[in-house]
């Protein structure tokens, strides 16, 4: 494996100018993404933003059109079996091995990692970790959606991976199953995780850092607090002046309102000042990017 020239801790995932084109459609238009060791990063975006494509390129399941990609220091296109053994992959909606039993599958899959990893998860321990203790001898096809998903995570963890991919892990979950799943992911702290989701709350709950992907471009990258701060300084001020409605986004809302009253006094009516939530920030970003997309298209 190549060592980095500088002495910083090397990134687990690093992409520069990642592009993907299907026919004449650009799905990824130059994505720069970095995931550091031990970090949990959420790739957040609306459906069709290119999240799954990105993750499939990183997993080595799909060849990119252009750009530099390094996953655990290796180009996924050249990734060998030893490289593969360091990854855990949880894709969207698995339905495989329905006739196998839970323990049977985990024990079978754990065999493969023996030659590559110092320590492999003991199947029974793993079953306990993901909370399937009562189901170890059940047929996989009879598990509920939430149980099935936890099994998928268990499969992803079997080789104690250096990097775990979770693609839309909670799609179709009821709130209870979602909460349990979030707890499970939090119990994995220390593992580097790249997860995709279109659920902002989920990203906020699970991730150290959120990367927002819209129409194949990264439009924001930072912690939840940083993203909120990007517009948090700005607040929406809404008021009526001489019967006419005004809506403004201003940085210093208090100062603005003070001057507003000083100038117009009683002519100001229906005043409302609102700080945007992270969700407003996210939706605004998505709208903005999609609109600029329409203009350039």
């Amino acid at each position, binding site marked *: 494996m190549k060592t980095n020239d500088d002495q910083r801790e090397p990134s687990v995932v690093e992409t520069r100018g990642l592009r993907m084109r299907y026919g004449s459609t650009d799905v990824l238009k130059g994505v720069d993404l970095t995931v550091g060791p031990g970090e949990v990063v959420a790739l957040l975006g609306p459906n069709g933003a290119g999240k799954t494509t990105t993750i499939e390129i990183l997993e080595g399941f799909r060849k990119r059109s252009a750009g530099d990609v390094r996953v655990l220091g290796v180009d996924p296109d050249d990734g060998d079996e030893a490289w593969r053994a360091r990854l855990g992959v949880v894709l969207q909606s698995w339905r495989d091995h329905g006739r196998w039993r839970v323990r049977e599958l985990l024990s079978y899959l754990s065999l*493969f990692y023996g030659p590559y990893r110092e320590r492999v998860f003991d199947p029974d321990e793993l079953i306990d970790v993901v909370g399937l203790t009562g189901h170890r001898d059940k047929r996989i096809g009879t598990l509920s959606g939430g149980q099935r998903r936890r099994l998928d995570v268990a499969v992803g963890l079997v080789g104690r991976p250096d990097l775990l991919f979770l693609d839309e892990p909670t799609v179709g979950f009821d709130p209870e199953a979602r909460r349990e799943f979030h707890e499970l992911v939090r119990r994995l702290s220390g593992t580097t995780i790249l997860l995709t989701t279109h659920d902002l709350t989920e990203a906020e709950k699970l991730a150290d850092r959120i990367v927002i992907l819209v129409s194949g471009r990264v439009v924001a990258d930072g912690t939840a607090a940083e993203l909120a701060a990007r517009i948090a300084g700005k607040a929406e001020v809404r008021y009526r002046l001489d019967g006419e409605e005004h809506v403004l986004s201003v940085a210093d809302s208090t100062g603005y309102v003070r001057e507003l009253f000083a100038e117009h006094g009683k002519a100001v009516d229906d005043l409302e000042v609102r700080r945007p939530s992270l969700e407003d920030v996210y939706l605004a970003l998505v709208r903005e990017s999609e609109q600029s997309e329409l203009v350039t298209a």
Partner: protein
Amino acid sequence: MNPRAVAVRAGVRRGRIEFGQTMTNAGELMGWLWLPVVALVVMYAFGDGSVPGVDFPLGAQAVPGILAMHAVFTGLMGLALALTMDREDGTLLRAKATPNGVFAYVVGKVLGKAAVTTALLVLVLVPAVLVFDGLEPGRVSTWLTLSWVLVLGLLAILPIGTILGALFGNTQSLGFVTLLIMGMVVVSGVFYPITALPGWLQWIGQAFPMYWLGLGLRSALLPDALAAAEIGGSWRHLETVVALGAWAVVGFALAPVVLRRMARRESGSSVAARREQVAQRPS
């Protein structure tokens, strides 16, 4: 232990587990057994006529051919079906996400299907030997010949199943494979001696492994006098070895290429897309 050896061991385990799953599933067993059972019942009821030129009942003469057809169906079709189904549900993708997983997957599938085919063959063979008069279960040579013919037959058939399963994108298009096997049944002299067919059809029949498997099984199970009803009046063991061996060599050379191509194309979105297709299928 080195990774390849581990993968082979894992493959053997997969084969054993899936063999157990098939053998304990009554529905699946019925699915594979009805065809040879119906064929045998029909031959038992209506096979009173004599093989042309030999004083031997047609019904008993057809038993080995039916066994050959049965082996090709369970082995070839079973493997092709399993491969396409495993791509639809993501089993193959799971293997791809595991180090050396695809290799072990193929080892397991082939071994599992070989065991299933052998077991299902025995399940049909034993009652057939008891019910039909004229078969020769008492000779040592019967079982020796049966063994090598079956092993060689499986080596010829299973790679074809692998290749077809890898080439066809979904279980629907496998209907074509069923048709192909039906065609093979017609030209391979399964129910009636192949010598009754026009010469050019005999040549087509001899191009496919079902004929040679059937011939080999007839040589194992029928009295030697019946060789008179075969092409050239002989069991042609040498030719059987060459023909089945050639299919095996070509199959084993091609299968890895086709399988690698299939595995390369596998990704989460391709599994999802295939599932979408299945969901939109009119029922």
